[in-house]
């Protein structure tokens, strides 16, 4: 049993007896803050019955120490000075509860994140810890017993985004018997993965592993698949979210369409004239189309921008004729808003690739044979625009290909981060291009990053295959020949940093390994779901190590590349984790809400109504009979804005009562 500092004056008064516990956190706190001195100081504060310091307060013996003291010293209040309350407030509250003390009789003091970790001067850090402990001791005395609210959880789950992460999460939940709404913006699910030909490092065919999962989504009775749809609004709180989904008109009645595509064949356009989005514009499609052969759902879409019927209303409508008595085509379809109730949400909104037009030196858009890596994925794909032939725009096979890494990655002028997947997919593309064309392939890289199971081995394989690796960031791609051997070629200029001179390498085809970026509407989405973004625009997880799929909003989880660049295995693992988190919440059936709601002392309310417009949740109403305001506790989310607005202080917020905060302020500033 560690030494307890016995107070010389403290607990003799009539107030509640307080116990103070100062955590060393190994050396995390004790390395900077003199924890013994803080405990000794606390022992002398009025009301303190016992004060101790201990190596790890959050450990089982640490908690047992508090519990024993509560019993032996008849403590009524507890102050724990350790890490951020966001980390261990729950832990210590439970410890109190287990020995019959109301969990809200606790006050945490953050002397790690806000103190020992950010200050170098031990004296100043110790003084700060003392100030904060003093404030907490004064505040905790005023704490009142509070009860958490229990609300039932709606077992339905909303998943936003139908890429591999969304698909995997949806199937996991649906297989466990949960009702899932999978909402996807595009007319088909599949996301980026559906565009790939092979996946690294195993080179298994992307379609072969993805399409069974897509089909399973389409046929699972527990999954409501809403493609071509977007989230319009989100309201409610954990366990009880209300979602409005905007369902864009595809001018096809989904239930009627069989996916036979006879309408596509019958369309008055003999050939497609519109750049095909799925093939990134490398081929053309018709106004009525199926995004790609394995699309799920197998339902066509009509593009009103190019369909003659929408332009002139004078089309012969051969498509309607072909559809016949299936009657799936409806030119009058309108956008619809559907409302659903769910308890938990998984965001799997993915990423976008860097737009290489932002770098004028690589000639994208100027030289036809400069491609993005995603375009090359389509060229290699057997169901792509060239049937899997890697050919240039003029149909010829390239004899030499340069793959430029880090386009829009690791660059302060565009994106500073490493996109994590490009080295590996560049190796994959190098292999596939070499296999299909026999071309000389040059990789221009800054650092080869192949950390992953089987990844380094794959790199070895590529080295064996005779692919060239030139360590240097490419400065430009030019068609200016400086030597007869460069005539008619695209010349890549980079320093071969290992040879220490600049090289010019003429190639037929250039592949830009574009990096990953947050979706352009990531900010709008995260606002809608009330979560945060890291500064680059990736969704912010609750904790980078210990809560990587949770967010700061209860019941909202994130999975896949919307959180940061990651490859398929990581996305799938995260999707599984998010599904499990959601399931854990659902299966607990109830969710406990913090009791930080506002309440009104009716006698003191003057009925001035200042509070009513303050509340964004319409939780406050005016009761005309009494001429008083009333708060609906169920609707109140506990922000406290009305409390600050009340001129008569008749509204208070549980756990954040005026007196408690005043006491804390004064405690901080009081000189002992």
């Amino acid at each position, binding site marked *: 049993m560690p030494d307890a500092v016995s107070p010389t004056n403290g607990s003799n008064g009539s107030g509640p007896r307080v116990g103070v516990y100062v955590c060393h956190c190994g050396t995390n706190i004790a390395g900077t803050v003199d924890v013994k001195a803080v405990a000794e100081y606390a022992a002398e504060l009025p009301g303190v019955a016992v004060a101790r310091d201990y190596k790890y307060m959050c450990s089982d013996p640490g908690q047992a120490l508090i519990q024993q003291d509560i019993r032996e010293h008849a403590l009524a209040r507890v102050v724990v000075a350790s890490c951020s309350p966001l980390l261990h407030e729950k832990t210590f509250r439970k410890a109190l509860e287990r020995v019959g003390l109301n969990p809200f009789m606790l006050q945490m003091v953050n002397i790690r994140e806000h103190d020992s970790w950010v200050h170098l001067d031990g004296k100043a850090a110790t003084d700060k810890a003392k100030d904060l402990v003093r404030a907490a001791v004064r505040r905790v005395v005023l704490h009142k017993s509070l009860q958490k609210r229990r609300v039932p959880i709606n077992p339905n789950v909303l998943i936003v985004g139908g890429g591999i992460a969304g698909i995997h999460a949806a199937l996991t939940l649906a297989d466990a018997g949960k009702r899932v709404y999978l909402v996807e913006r595009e007319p088909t699910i599949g996301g980026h993965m559906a565009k790939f030909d092979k996946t690294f490092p195993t080179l298994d065919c992307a379609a072969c592993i993805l399409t069974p999962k897509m089909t399973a989504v389409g046929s699972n009775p527990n999954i409501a698949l809403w493609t071509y749809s977007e989230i319009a609004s989100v309201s409610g709180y954990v366990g009880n979210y209300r979602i409005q989904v905007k369902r864009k008109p595809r001018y096809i009645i989904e239930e009627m369409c069989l996916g036979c595509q006879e309408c596509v064949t019958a369309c008055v356009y003999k050939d497609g004239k519109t750049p095909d989005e799925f093939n990134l514009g490398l081929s053309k499609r018709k106004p009525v189309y199926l995004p790609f052969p394995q699309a799920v759902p197998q339902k066509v879409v009509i593009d009103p921008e190019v369909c003659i019927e929408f332009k002139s209303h004078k089309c012969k409508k051969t498509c309607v004729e072909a559809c016949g008595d299936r009657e799936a085509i409806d030119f009058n379809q309108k956008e619809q808003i559907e409302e659903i109730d769910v308890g938990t949400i998984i965001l799997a909104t993915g990423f976008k690739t860097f737009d290489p037009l932002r770098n004028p*030196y690589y000639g994208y858009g100027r030289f036809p044979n400069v491609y993005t890596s995603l375009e090359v994925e389509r060229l290699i794909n057997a169901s792509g625009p060239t049937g899997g032939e890697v050919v240039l725009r003029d149909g010829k096979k390239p004899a030499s290909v340069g793959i430029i890494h880090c386009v829009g990655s690791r660059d*302060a002028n565009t994106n500073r981060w490493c996109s994590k997947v490009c080295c590996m997919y560049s190796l994959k593309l190098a292999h596939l291009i070499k296999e299909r064309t026999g071309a000389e392939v040059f990789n221009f890289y800054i650092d080869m990053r192949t950390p992953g199971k089987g990844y380094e081995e794959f790199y070895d394989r590529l080295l064996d295959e005779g692919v060239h690796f030139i360590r*240097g*960031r490419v*400065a430009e791609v030019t068609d200016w020949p400086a030597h007869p051997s460069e005539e008619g070629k695209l010349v890549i*200029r980079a*320093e071969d940093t290992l040879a*220490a*001179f600049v090289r010019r390498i003429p190639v037929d085809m250039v592949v830009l390994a574009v990096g990953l970026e947050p979706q352009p509407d990531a900010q709008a989405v995260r606002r809608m779901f009330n979560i945060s973004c890291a500064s680059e625009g990736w969704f912010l997880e609750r904790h980078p190590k210990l809560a990587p799929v949770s967010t700061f909003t209860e019941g909202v989880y994130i999975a896949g590349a919307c959180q940061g660049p990651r490859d398929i295995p990581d996305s799938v693992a995260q999707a599984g984790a998010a599904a499990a988190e959601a399931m854990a919440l659902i299966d607990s059936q109830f969710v406990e809400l913090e009791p930080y709601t506002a309440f009104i002392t009716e006698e003191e309310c003057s009925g001035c109504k200042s509070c009513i417009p303050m509340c964004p949740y319409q939780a406050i109403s005016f009761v005309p009979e009494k001429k008083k305001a009333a708060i609906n506790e169920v609707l109140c989310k506990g922000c406290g804005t009305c409390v600050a607005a009340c001129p008569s202080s008749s509204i208070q917020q549980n756990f954040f009562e005026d007196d408690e905060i005043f006491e804390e302020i004064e405690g901080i500033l009081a000189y002992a």
Partner: protein
Amino acid sequence: MGLHRTVKFEADRDPEFARWISHTVGGERIRHCLQCGLCSASCPLSQYMDYTPRRLMHLSREGFKDEALGSYTIWLCTACYRCMVECPKKINLTHLMYALKERAIKERVYPKRFPIPVMARQFCAMIRGSGRITESWLMMRVFLRTAIWRMFGLRSLGWKLFQTGRLNLKPDKIERRDELGTILQSVATTRKELAI
């Protein structure tokens, strides 16, 4: 073929020089350099350099002073700023080239009769004297100190420029030239005071 030692000992390094380069104006981020070589590849002059700009950055930050200051690279830089604007780590390369040039001139380590430092000195002398540059006179002074034969090669161009009125034979001078001297005097004093 002369063989010489290529291994470097720690004693070959000048740690003071390394400290200086990362603390000089513009050197703040030199330690971030990831040696990608974009500077070298984007440089229009790198094809003639003994050390590419990338290598120069590394040599400097490691303190290989003799190699860095003795390199042709700093004299070939035309200050086109391309490396600097494209550098993925925003390293102020062009400025570092100036800093290295300034130091090389100060320490008098550059090839003899090498025209660029000579030109730089003449240029500055003319500003101090007249306040402005008269191109014809500047070229004359440079050639006199480097390779006089080149004057003949330029004779026909000079004549053409003269004919089109583009060659000023009368040096351009400003009034209140003493102000420039005052400025330079003050700069020298403050520099000493602040020890920069």
